[in-house]
């Protein structure tokens, strides 16, 4: 006696195939939803902002008059901020990753640290803003300057760099380390000459992705106390500053008062998206160019 009745199978085949194509349609629609929203968003932003982008908009200082207002201050501010964030996250992030992967004994303490770094990545950015305000802006009495904002931002994106660097270091095959140790190299010589060069592309990719996240963050800097209308352009890391997303934020909430601010915000979003897109492209290029070939 057969357990599978081919007649029954044939009778139910129609509904099975229907469920099959239904599943495909649902998942396709789910994918489409995100895509459509993104396209609508980009379309709206371009429609509102594109005509406002010109050299004056890029090179002018901030102003309450929408016709005169420009984002030069925010661009320079973003540049200075990155100049703080990049080296700080690089040193702290890569250092942490090297310690965890190469030095720390694999045990409870190291897995405790690793878990907490993952948790840190999940802490809302506004909480980092409060930390930055309390520690850097007030306790260290830096004020709401580039350095305070940069250190806060560095802490915020640190987990991204740590995790990316850890993965890059772990991907360096053990046999390369053995080759180096086998010739009498110390651990540090092995890390410096073998592990880091092999892990560098992965580390750089992580760093760029982290910076592109930092460039788009708003909340921590608003908490630290970036002025809504800052006319001077910062000259260094001890100056007050503003950055592109914060400018977008203030223009958007003020657009109830002056309608054109909405267009300025849209125009700034276009610029910010171009910057982000460029950074992510560089990260992808680096990753593809140095794809591992062991």
């Amino acid at each position, binding site marked *: 006696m057969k357990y599978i009745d081919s007649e029954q199978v044939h009778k139910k085949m129609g509904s099975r195939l229907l469920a099959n194509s239904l599943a495909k349609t649902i998942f396709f629609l789910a994918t489409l939803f995100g895509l459509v929203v993104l396209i609508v968003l980009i379309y709206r932003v371009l429609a509102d902002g594109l005509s406002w982008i010109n050299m004056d908009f890029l090179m002018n200082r901030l102003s309450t008059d929408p016709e005169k207002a420009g984002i030069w201050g925010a661009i320079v501010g973003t540049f200075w901020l990155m100049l703080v964030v990049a080296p700080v996250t690089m040193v702290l992030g890569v250092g942490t990753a090297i310690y965890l992967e190469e030095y720390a*004994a694999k045990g409870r303490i190291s897995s405790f640290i690793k878990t907490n770094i993952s948790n840190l990545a999940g802490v809302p950015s506004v909480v980092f803003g409060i930390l930055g305000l309390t520690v850097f802006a007030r306790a260290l009495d830096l004020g709401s300057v580039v350095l305070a904002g940069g250190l806060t931002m560095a802490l915020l994106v640190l987990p991204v760099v740590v995790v990316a660097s850890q993965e890059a270091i772990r991907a360096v095959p053990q*046999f390369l380390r053995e*080759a180096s140790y086998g*010739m*009498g190299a110390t651990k540090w010589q092995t890390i410096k000459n073998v592990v880091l*060069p092999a892990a560098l592309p992965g580390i750089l990719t992580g760093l760029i992705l982290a910076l592109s996240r930092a460039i788009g963050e708003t909340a921590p800097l608003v908490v630290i106390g970036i002025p809504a209308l800052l006319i001077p352009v910062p000259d260094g890391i001890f100056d007050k500053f503003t950055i592109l997303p914060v400018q977008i934020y203030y223009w958007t909430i003020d657009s109830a008062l002056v309608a054109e601010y909405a267009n300025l915000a849209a125009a700034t979003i276009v610029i910010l998206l171009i910057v982000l897109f460029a950074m992510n492209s560089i990260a992808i290029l680096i990753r593809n160019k140095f794809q591992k070939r*062991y």
Partner: protein
Amino acid sequence: MPVMTEKTNPNTKIANVSQKATENKKVVYNTKDLNLWYGEGHALKNINLAINENEVTAIIGPSGCGKSTYIKTLNRMVELVPSVRISGEILYRERNILDKSFKVEDLRTSVGMVFQKPNPFPKSIYENVAYGPKIHGIRDKKILDEIVEKSLRGAAIWDEVKDRLNQNAYGLSGGQQQRLCIARCLAIEPDVILMDEPTSALDPISTLKVEELVQELKEEFSIIIVTHNMQQAARISDKTAFFLNGEVIEFAETDKIFSTPSDKRTEDYITGRFG
């Protein structure tokens, strides 16, 4: 039943010749009551072996018998594995390498290692060979050039690579990569060369080249080679140690092991009854 007879193994005579010289040779590695555990697993049990200088000592045995563990203990590479415990003594030139005061970096400068899988660095051929001298502080470009050439010649690969020293080592064939790794090992001017199944990833022709190389190198170095291939052990070694389940079952002149083994288990293994 012996697997190798005078007829099938022309190298037996060579082995006999070098065997006569054995009495005058100094011991380079003397292992005394060595025990090693990986966590709870007892991987090496009461190993006692005296290895002579300027000889090729082969270590044979089935998978998991501890032969790789043993050779990695000789340059303390085994310590890279977490939860390893070692007891006993390994005297290298009469100093106990398991002693805390013996720095592994010192040891590994005198004792080079060639690994199972060719493992060149993703750097140029030149940089691969110059790596060892550089980490030991040699900066002079002229001296480095000399060391690189001498080492590549020593590993019989100079003619194949002399015109492309600046190309990436990954462009070489597997056999060339392994000889490059031998050159890289020679560049630290070692006293002993440990080889952990150096030909297991190579084709027969590359294997032959490495075997010939080993014969040349023993004039200058002491070589300890782990091999899966019994014919290889018979062809190239002066002495052979047979490992089984973490113990040394038999250690003697190679031609004796392969013609008149004194232990039944050695005979079973070399005649292919197991392993």
